[in-house]
């Protein structure tokens, strides 16, 4: 892939990939230390897709994103503050969702993240609705739905892709194909070699990209986004990638063939971009190490801060279920 992005954007992508990587490594440790409870799904190895996606999203214009429970990387890349994420991971009051969501239920409307959906396939239909709002209001905004390679086997995926195609909704369907649906290899559960093959059934364009290379993902997503903004409807983009860790906290991923992980790690998304920047004279080895140290230090600082943050007040337990109704005054009037 030739250089297609300026040094500033590359630097931002690299910094964000390092932030995601070190945040998730720290999150895993915090789970093992019982500081974080429940479960978690790490995207270590898949960071390039997150940062490329974030470069396409314009939250100020109204762009929105839904993703899956493997969503820490997307949230951070979109600009969710690390403190907001880390406090949420620990169930603290200052978390993005006041501690009520946790690892699998992140949301930050400020950066366009409608939510990380913890039920496979649930995000795609919701993405369509956000895109419908954009279409009706003529804002030129798009909605991106990110999902894994297991998702096209659930009905909601097909219903959503079909509706988006029929209504020409401004959507980008972005599959992170990391080769495994939970513990089972993709080929054991899907009848077609590529997720993108499914696009033909709905008459929409598709593309397969190298998900380890942020600069390969970006132009493809940008083109899909521009088509969507222009009213040409949805595109299915399949990014080939790999999660270095298991499906979730409790999965040691022993089902993977020997050597597979190592082969993928040779094409690490952070190394690929860093090496290219070094070759182009945009980054020195020392600067890279310094950036890595800086992000590690930031993760550590925020972790310590979050550990000392207060729990939500118990009175909060039943708050935020109900919206105070918009037209309640008018309702009383009519009563």
């Amino acid at each position: 892939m030739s250089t297609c992005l300026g040094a500033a954007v590359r630097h931002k992508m690299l910094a964000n990939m390092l932030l995601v990587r070190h945040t998730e490594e720290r999150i895993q440790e915090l789970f093992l230390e019982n500081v974080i409870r429940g479960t978690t799904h790490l995207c270590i190895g898949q960071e390039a897709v997150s940062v490329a996606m974030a470069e396409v999203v314009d939250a100020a214009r109204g762009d929105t994103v839904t993703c899956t429970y493997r969503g820490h990387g997307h949230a951070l890349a979109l600009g969710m503050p690390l403190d907001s994420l880390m406090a949420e991971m620990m169930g603290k009051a200052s978390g993005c969702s006041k501690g009520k969501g946790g690892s699998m239920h992140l949301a930050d409307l400020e950066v366009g993240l409608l939510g990380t959906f913890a039920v496979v396939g649930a995000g795609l239909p919701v993405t369509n609705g956000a895109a419908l709002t954009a279409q009706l209001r003529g804002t030129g905004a798009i909605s991106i739905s990110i999902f894994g390679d297991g998702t096209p086997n659930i009905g909601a995926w097909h219903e959503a892709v079909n509706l988006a195609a029929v209504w020409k909704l401004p959507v980008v369907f972005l599959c992170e194909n990391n080769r495994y649906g939970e513990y089972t290899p993709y080929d054991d559960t899907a009848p077609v070699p590529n997720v993108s093959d499914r696009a033909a059934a709905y008459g929409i364009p598709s593309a397969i990209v190298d998900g380890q290379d942020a600069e390969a993902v970006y132009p493809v997503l940008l083109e899909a986004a521009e088509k969507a903004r222009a009213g040409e409807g949805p595109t299915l983009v399949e990014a080939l990638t790999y999660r270095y860790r298991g499906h979730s906290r409790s999965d040691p991923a022993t089902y993977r063939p020997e050597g597979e992980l190592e082969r993928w790690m040779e094409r690490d998304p952070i190394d690929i971009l860093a090496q290219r920047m070094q070759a182009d004279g945009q980054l020195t080895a020392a600067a890279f190490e310094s950036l890595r140290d800086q992000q590690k230090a930031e993760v550590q600082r925020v972790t310590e801060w979050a550990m000392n943050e207060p729990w939500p007040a118990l009175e909060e337990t039943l708050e935020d279920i109900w919206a105070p109704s918009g037209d309640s005054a008018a309702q009383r009037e009519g009563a």
Partner: protein
Amino acid sequence: MAVITCRDAVVRALDEEMARDEDVIFFGEDVGKAGGVFKVTPGLFEKYGERRVRDTPISENAIVGAGVGAAVTGMRPVIELMFADFAAVTLDQIVNQAAKLRYMSGGQIQVPLTIRMAQGSAGGFGSQHSQCCESWFMHAPGLKVCVPGNPADILGLLKSAVRDDNPVIFLEHKGQYAERGEVPDHANHLVPMGQARIVREGGDVTIVAVQHMVGVALKAADTLAEQGVECEVIDPRTLVPLDMETIARSVEKTGHLVTVEEAVRAGGWGAEVVSQITENNIWSLEGPVVRVTLGAGIIPFSQPLEEHLLPGPEDVVAAVRRSLES
């Protein structure tokens, strides 16, 4: 006051709200060009156009999900799932997504979505097109549940549902679409949620019923009146929120409580009403509480079987007698 049908009330509520607020959109299977399978929404497509009134594929997950996503981003969608039984196809979008997104996001997200469905027996629709499903949704905090049973309540509650910032399950009884009733002429008739209506006053026994069963209860009340028993018939109109205050006040007066549901007994709203009365007002009771329901029945196709299973006035009379005479 004009006399209109329940069917008219639905389309009038949608028309008034769509005229009032451009963010109100309406979509579902066959609701546009065809005017709805139950002919409940004629004219909206012609008046508001294909952008705001949309026919969808037969894809309940996609319909509800699109409603949720549009609601979250600022619209006020009304969607139709045709038969309430079909909500089962998209239960995830309803109970996991629509109901919980606000809570799980710490209050960041609002889901002002109205999900319309037709429920209940209309004679011969069989097991998968006749259920009353209201109690399914009472178990998912975050959802409001409306069960209006006459034109005025349909009109006023549907308008309130559209204006509500929460997801609202709006159940219409398909056997009542042709029933007539008076409605105010002005365009601001709103029925607030959580306010029961005392349909008939009486001092001897409290009967709580919704939709088609209100008529059944009233017939029973006529029979019982001839026998010297005065029934107070209460229609809660919404099950979430549930106006227990009105019901409890009535039970304090009558000392007897009968609930009438066109639905399965276990875990029904009648069980909830009865539980709350026994928890909070047990000393008001002068006889056993009695629930009239379908028991553990499934709606059959055959006419005599279906009519046998559905509660009728004689079942309500028997229930009242049991409460009074035990």
